[in-house]
């Protein structure tokens, strides 16, 4: 089928070095690669997106990418009503021929690797996970990270804390909770949050580990290298470009709605960021694990619910 333009809707401004930015940039890159125009509707919040969805449909966009789990009820409904194709997250079962696809992106494989990396690099034997909320994709990464840590070194201690419900922009809370985890012994922080993640980063930059050494930060989704001050250890990078590109091509090939999409280590849409903080030998051994996972010798199942995270971190301690 013909496709001239697509639109992506994000809940926050696409300048967060994270979820929103990755969505916007991925869509733009996919559009460039396939010659399709991309409309971005950013900072729509988590409330009523139906009017925007309808307008974008009226404007002639063939595909609406609803880039927030909060949009996964509204988008299919408007898609059906306005007869446009929609892509949503966190609802694989909603797939429908010519109408709905899901791209529940999960960086859990990358997070698993990050867990190995963290365990190898930790001096204190304790690592921390800080999240600003508990959406499914973050839960999956939290679980996988913890599993990776334990797989690398079973004696490791893992501390987990949520800043507060929906504390996405609570930078001060991010810093406060991170400092507590550092005080509890963590010298590596695996942080997931939007605005709040900058508070976590600042905490890492300004707080010493209990052994008096440096604390490192492992980020998710985006690449904060450009704003790093030497504390960024790694990041579970996502690349949504292949996902969106595949969607567009499937539309062109009239195959839209026959499969869901995801990101994976295999096609490079999930990867671990190499920074100069990671010694080469450590990096190499992590990459060996990655290769095993790509080959299928090692499987990590994503767990998306918060209960799994809580069960895991309390059982691990």
């Amino acid at each position, binding site marked *: 089928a013909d496709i001239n333009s697509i639109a992506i809707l994000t809940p926050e*401004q696409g300048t967060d070095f994270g979820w929103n930015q990755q969505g916007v940039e991925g869509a733009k890159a996919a559009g460039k690669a396939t010659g399709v125009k991309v*409309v*971005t*509707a*950013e*900072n*729509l919040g*988590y*409330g*009523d997106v*139906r*009017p*925007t969805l*309808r*307008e974008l449909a*009226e404007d002639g966009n063939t595909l609406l990418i609803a880039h927030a*789990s*909060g949009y*996964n*009820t*509204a988008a299919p*409904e408007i898609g*059906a*009503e306005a007869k446009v194709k929609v892509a949503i997250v*966190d*609802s694989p*079962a909603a797939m429908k021929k010519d109408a709905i696809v899901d791209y*529940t992106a999960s960086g859990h494989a990358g997070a698993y690797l990050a867990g190995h990396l963290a365990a190898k690099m930790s001096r204190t034997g304790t690592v921390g996970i800080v999240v600003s*909320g*508990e*959406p*499914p994709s973050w839960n999956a990464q939290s679980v996988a990270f913890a599993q990776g840590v334990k797989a690398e070194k079973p004696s490791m201690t893992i501390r987990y804390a949520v800043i507060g*419900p*929906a504390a996405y922009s609570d930078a001060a809370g991010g810093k406060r909770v991170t400092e507590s985890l550092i005080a509890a012994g963590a010298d590596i922080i695996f942080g997931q949050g939007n605005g709040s993640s900058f508070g976590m980063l600042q905490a890492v930059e300004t707080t010493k580990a209990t052994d008096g050494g440096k604390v490192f930060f492992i980020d998710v989704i985006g690449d904060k290298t450009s704003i790093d001050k030497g504390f960024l250890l790694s990041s579970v990078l996502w690349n949504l470009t292949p996902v969106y590109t595949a969607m567009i091509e499937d539309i062109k090939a009239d195959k839209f709605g026959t499969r869901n999409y995801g990101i994976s280590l295999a096609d490079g849409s999930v990867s671990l960021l190499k920074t100069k903080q990671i010694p080469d030998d450590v990096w190499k051994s992590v990459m060996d694990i990655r290769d095993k996972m790509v080959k299928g010798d090692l499987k990590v199942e994503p767990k*998306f*619910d*918060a209960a799994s995270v809580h069960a895991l971190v309390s059982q691990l301690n």
Partner: protein
Amino acid sequence: MSVEVQDPSADGQAAAKNNGLASRRLLTDRLQLIGLSIGPLVAAILVASLILIAMGVNPVDYYTYIVNRGLLSPSGIEATLTRMGPLLLIAAGLIVAFRAGIWNLGGDAQFLLGASVVAALAPVLTGYMPVWLVLIVTLVIGAIIGALWSLVPALLRARQGVNEIITTMMMSFLGISFSNVLVKIFFLDPATNVPQTRTLPVEDRLPRLFDTTISSGVLIGLVAILIVHYVMAKTAFGLKLKIVGANAKAAVHAGLSVSALTIGVFAISAGFSGLSGAVAVLGQYGNVRADWNPAYTLTIVPLVFLARFNGFATIAYVFLFSVLSIGSESAARRLGVPNYFTLVTMAILLILLGITEMLDQKRRESRRT
């Protein structure tokens, strides 16, 4: 603390009766009135335009987009009207409360709890009864839940005189968290990873009006606010509430049961907020997600004040607000302005409307003989 607001309609009547005004004066009055209602809008647009120009955006384009989207395009006006439904219900509740001198600022939790419970029940109930009955039952339940959440502040205020600004705000913070607990733990849709309630299918929701996407929630809202307006203006009950609000000592002196009325006001006001939550879920959203909180109350409070608790003026302000919020998202997107600008526009408009309201008050005062 006192809320001192005069009913403009009653005022106008009195003024008209009092003086046999010359027709010339009537004309200047009309002109003044038109100036006072259009003026702030124009001024707000001008101030906002300056900021737009500073950002390198053509203000004419920006406002054309807003009007086109929020008012003139079919789907835009449909969205505007649909958005009004829950807002009008919240406004109706606030009018009742403020008229009676009660500061129910806990609307957000009353809304959310109503919404959550209704969202959890409605999809289940459809298995047991016809859809129309489900809708009626759940609307009532939403209102009851909202009212229940105001019970503690109501009793504290009625029995012990505990200030309700504090208690309703407390209960609001508490209720927002509680609603999240309900959704995340008890009302969870097992079929999805996302912490949210089951979803009421589109065809089971409140009917849409005619052949459009307008939810009939807007009708419920309009009816509610008109009823409130009528009750406040014309009935003994409304008058009693107004007396409690205007002079509680006089209400006691006149033998009104102030504590019963207070509890009644809380129940009605919070009931409308709960009903608003039900209408939002049944008419638009279909479910409730964890951590969702549109926080409508705080946006509606100033509008209700600017309308001086008058039902018709409230409808006008809510309409204006909805046009602006629907239209400006579109305009911002098309012109590459960050959507945050909508907040700034809203602030400028509120301030200028506030100035107008004050000037208008002065005008009435100086005319009164």
